[in-house]
């Protein structure tokens, strides 16, 4: 058979049944789009997690209240009341490797400025918290150790608060009210991110922890202690020393478990990426199932098509087509069908991913390389689905006897 006639004949046949071609390809479109979207979103989620963890700062150790939880990691935590402000001071003062330690307490409150309201998170921290987080001040100043000692009613705010409450005008020196409590804005934090998620990070007000404990949250224990260690080499020893110190301070007997959890940034990152990796796989396999279902749809339609076109096959055989020619024709029809669906699915998947990512405020998910890989893999998978599910119908067609095929009605 003429080589260039093989794809020609297959494309002709698909064009003769345009509607069916489109509907069948749709199964693959959805399957491939689902796979791409799920993988894309999974990647986006893990890179977002990674970024958030990086934002924690360098050489940071987090001390959570409560015992080590399942899987060895507690993210967020902070339900037990075992960490005191004095624990934080002791960690800072008694362990030489520790540079700074900030007892953290969080509350959700409404800020009132003039006739404007804004609901935000208020963090109580020590004066060196921004150093731990490596988060520079944009204008004004951070509160000082004296402010912490005196439980001053001062605060630094993130950009989102500036945008929402002050509509972008300079807030320094202005006073906002939190449940009637007047708090003076003395500094503005630099913007964390351009993304939606970044603006969530920027939706924050930081006050001295003393102010937070005594005047705002009503709590007496730290939700977490942020600890900065001198350098990376000292991380392990610092963790050990913190553990020893806190066990001693909490008067734990040797047989008793820790009533706190010491974690490094890496522990948190690992756990978080592991979780999002599992999620990615889970989502991708669900999407894979839908691709499989699309493939079965192709097989079904090809089988119907072979039955319907028995006379056509008979005629082709009569005028000189050989079994392999017929096999190849139907196989290529299935592959082209799947490739069409694959291309549609790639476009749809990338589009859906971008839309969702923009909405969720994640960074661009598909680098050019990742794009090339995604397109290549999807195309290859689609073609493989076509060959796999198209083979049986094509084989059936190629085995037809021309006389019998020509006689069927």
């Amino acid at each position, binding site marked *: 058979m003429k080589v260039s006639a093989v794809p020609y004949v297959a494309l002709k046949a698909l064009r003769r049944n345009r509607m069916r071609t489109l509907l069948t390809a749709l199964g693959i479109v959805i399957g491939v789009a689902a796979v791409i979207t799920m993988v894309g979103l999974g990647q986006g989620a893990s890179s977002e997690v990674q970024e958030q963890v990086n934002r924690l700062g360098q050489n940071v150790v987090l001390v959570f209240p409560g015992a080590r939880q399942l899987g060895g990691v507690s993210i967020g935590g902070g339900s037990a009341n075992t960490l005191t402000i004095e624990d934080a001071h002791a960690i800072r003062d008694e362990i030489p490797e520790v540079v700074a330690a900030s007892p953290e307490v969080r509350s959700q409150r409404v800020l009132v400025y003039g006739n404007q309201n804004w609901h935000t998170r208020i963090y109580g921290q020590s004066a060196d918290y921004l150093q731990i987080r490596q988060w520079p001040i944009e204008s004004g100043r951070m509160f000082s150790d004296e402010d912490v000692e005196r439980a001053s009613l001062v605060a630094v705010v993130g950009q989102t608060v500036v945008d929402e409450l002050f509509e972008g005008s300079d807030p320094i020196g202005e006073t906002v009210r939190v449940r009637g409590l007047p708090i003076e804005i003395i500094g503005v934090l630099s913007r964390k991110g351009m993304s939606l998620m970044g603006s969530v990070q920027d939706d924050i007000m930081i006050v001295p922890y003393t102010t937070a404990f005594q005047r705002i949250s009503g709590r007496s224990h730290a939700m977490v202690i942020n600890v900065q260690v001198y350098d990376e080499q000292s991380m392990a020893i610092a963790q050990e020393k913190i553990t020893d110190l806190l066990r001693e301070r909490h008067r734990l007997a040797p047989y008793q478990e820790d009533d706190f959890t010491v974690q490094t940034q890496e522990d948190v990152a690992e756990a978080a990426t592991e979780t999002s990796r599992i999620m990615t796989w889970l989502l991708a396999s669900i999407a894979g199932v839908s691709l499989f279902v699309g493939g079965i749809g192709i097989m079904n339609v090809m089988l119907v098509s072979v039955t319907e076109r028995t006379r*056509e096959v008979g005629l082709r055989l009569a005028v*000189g087509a050989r079994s392999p020619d017929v096999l190849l024709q139907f196989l290529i029809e299935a592959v082209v069908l799947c490739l069409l669906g694959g291309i549609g699915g790639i476009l749809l998947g990338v589009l859906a991913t971008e839309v969702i990512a923009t909405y969720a405020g994640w960074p661009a998910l598909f680098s050019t390389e990742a794009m090339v890989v995604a397109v290549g893999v999807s195309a290859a998978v689609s073609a493989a689905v076509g060959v796999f599910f198209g083979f049986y119908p094509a084989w059936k067609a190629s085995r037809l006897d021309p*006389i019998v095929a020509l006689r069927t009605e």
Partner: protein
Amino acid sequence: MAIVQLKGITRVYKSGSLAVEALRGIDLQIAEGNFVSIMGASGSGKSTLMNILGCLDKPTEGSYNLGGEDVSTFDKSRLAKIRNRMLGFVFQSFHLLPRTSALENVELPLLYSDDNLSWKEIHKRAREALEIVGLGDRTDHNPNELSGGQQQRVAIARALVSNPKILLADEPTGNLDSRTTLEIVELFQKLNKGGLTIIMVTHEPDIARFSNRIITLRDGLMSSDKTIEPLNALQALENWKDEEKIQQESEVQS
């Protein structure tokens, strides 16, 4: 030497314990350039014989020499090649691909040819074949836009496009009215004059008389084989037209 030589051809259909002897020993020679009619009652084995002549089926016993080659020993692939190169088929029910232009229908056998023709050459040959059957102006029409007679002409063009030695037609006019039937037979006579060997199955004696040899089958055996002086289909068509004209005129007068 004859282009077709059949010796002791039998064909037994077996289905379960039942065996049907459709052909029970056919000896037949057909010289090149003949126009042969095969007649016989329904079930006498005409189609079975045509399938064997057309290399679509193999005899149970006997030998078949086609154009100097013993094709009864050929495998499926070589038979496909013989069909493509040597034979053209015309069927009672046309067997055109739906939603496909006349030109593309005619091109079909060339796509399966081993000659590896260029697309240009393929289009050119298909157009020429359509011109021979008088449809040079209908190349872009789909089958559903053509009359029955025109569809059968497209099928004939498809049979001619690969320059076959033999045209095999199993009841080619079975689905056509008598006027169109005459036109098709006239086309066959024209092609036959150009040197093409034609074997045609028909159960109408009137049609068979336009060929120059009539073979009659009966229960899987040849019961008669007559060479005749064929009627002229062109003449018959002219007579028909005259009669129609006279009839129309008389209708107008009355």
